[in-house]
């Protein structure tokens, strides 16, 4: 499983998933997933809807509790029963399809609430960092706006800034652009691309094949709760070995 791109990596992967199973009642959504993500690596997970890719991502920060198997992030085993989940979740930052900005708080409060309440940073330090992050996602002038006053693309960029404010080691993107109007997708993808270039470790569930091809170090194709195929984006997207991957990609391209 060692076909990452030329990025230098430390020995211990930042994310290690071993034999992960997830069942919702009779529905066996994940059927034994093994996946490692090295520090600085960008991994895109693609696959048809219902393939389990979002569930896999949500197991990485324990928003879904795995039925079986092991999830280790930044050296902390989240699936261990003595694990302090609230603390362990600070290692990961998550961006959701529906943005999920706190509707009753201004942009600046959305970004500073967790650093202040969870990391106990003082307000001025938290706000300074928040302004820097807002500047980075191109929304410096929106600090005092409320989520309802922003476009979807702007909300999603605030959500990225909010996750980054906790200084996560890994960023999880759960179909971050799927709920956006087509003309707003570009700005969000650009922010994600910059983040990848800066060396952030990223696990990205996406339908944006162009992004996967251009930014990912590795593409993972999932179907029916299994990882069917993974490798360099040129290989998986350009010359897939598995029949299921070929079928999926030809369906996507036909649109």
């Amino acid at each position, binding site marked *: 499983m060692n076909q990452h791109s030329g990025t230098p990596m430390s020995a211990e992967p930042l994310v290690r998933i071993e034999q992960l199973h997830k069942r919702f009642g009779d529905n066996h959504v994940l059927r034994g997933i093994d996946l490692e993500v090295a520090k600085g690596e960008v991994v895109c997970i693609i696959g048809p809807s219902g393939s389990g890719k979002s569930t896999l991502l949500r197991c990485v920060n324990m928003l879904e509790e795995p039925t079986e198997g092991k999830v280790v992030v930044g050296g902390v085993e989240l699936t261990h029963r003595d694990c302090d989940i609230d603390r362990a979740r600070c290692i990961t930052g998550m961006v*959701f399809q529906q943005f999920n900005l706190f509707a009753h708080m201004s942009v600046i409060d959305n970004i500073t609430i967790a650093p202040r309440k969870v990391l106990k940073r003082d307000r001025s330090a938290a706000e300074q960092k928040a302004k820097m992050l807002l500047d980075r996602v191109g929304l410096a002038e929106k600090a005092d706006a409320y989520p309802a006053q922003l476009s979807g693309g702007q909300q999603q960029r605030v959500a990225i800034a909010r996750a980054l404010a906790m200084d996560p080691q890994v960023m999880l993107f759960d179909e971050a652009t799927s709920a956006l109007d087509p003309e707003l997708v570009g700005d969000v993808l650009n922010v994600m691309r910059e983040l990848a270039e800066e060396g952030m470790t990223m696990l990205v569930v996406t339908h944006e094949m162009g992004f996967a091809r251009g930014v990912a170090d590795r593409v993972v194709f999932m179907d029916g709760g299994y990882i069917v195929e993974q490798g360099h984006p040129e290989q998986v997207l350009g010359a897939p070995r598995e029949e299921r991957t070929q079928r999926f990609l030809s369906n996507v391209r036909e649109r």
Partner: protein
Amino acid sequence: MSLSRRQRLRLLRGVTYTATVAALVLIFLVVDWGELGGALFKWDIVTDQFPDILTTALRNTVIFTIFGFIGGLSLGLLLAIMRLSKVKPYRWFAATYIEVLRGIPLLVTLLILGFGIPIATGWQWPNPYIQGAVPLALVAAAYIAETVRAGIEAVPRGQMEAARSLGMSYTRAMATIIIPQAFRIIVPPLTNEFVLLIKDTSLISVLGVTASTLDLARFGRNGVNDTANATPLVVAGLVYLALTVPLTQLAAWMERRSKAGRR
């Protein structure tokens, strides 16, 4: 007759309207307005009600309402959180509490708690305000709990997930993210609960009152006994309206505003 369907409908509407107006005119003519006015709104009795109806009766009604509401809201919030807890016994307790106290008429609960408990245990309520306000708050809590629960459930799931993904504990996420948004949603129904509570305080007087703990309804009733005239009750009703109408209008306004805001 060769009337079209539309003409027939118009005729029917005309007849209904004329009959209604005729009935009203007839009532207006038959009723002895002088006598009715004298029995329901006799001016010197009206003026006699003041200032005591405000300084004693209204004051007591407001005290009972506010204590009932603050107590009911605190306990109601706690019950709502228990109702949504993962811990089954908490859920069962809250569900049973709500079911029982909403299922028994307030009058009966007041009598059981206000009289029954002292008789059964020998313990005495420390003062008549507490004797009335505590049962009122306990019942209000059951209603408010359901309102709060609905509010919490109306906050999108993603809000909790986002808060947890940022490392907040369940309790902190509830306190800083979910409950503040839930309260915004339930301000209009909560205002209506408050109005119901104002009116429900009128039942507290069944526990027996002293001159200083008279509420609006009892004050009106006593006035009727003293004057052999219904005017004191009509005045009490008007004072209730002076409290409740602005509040229901406020609730309706807030509801309209929040509907407009969601668009």
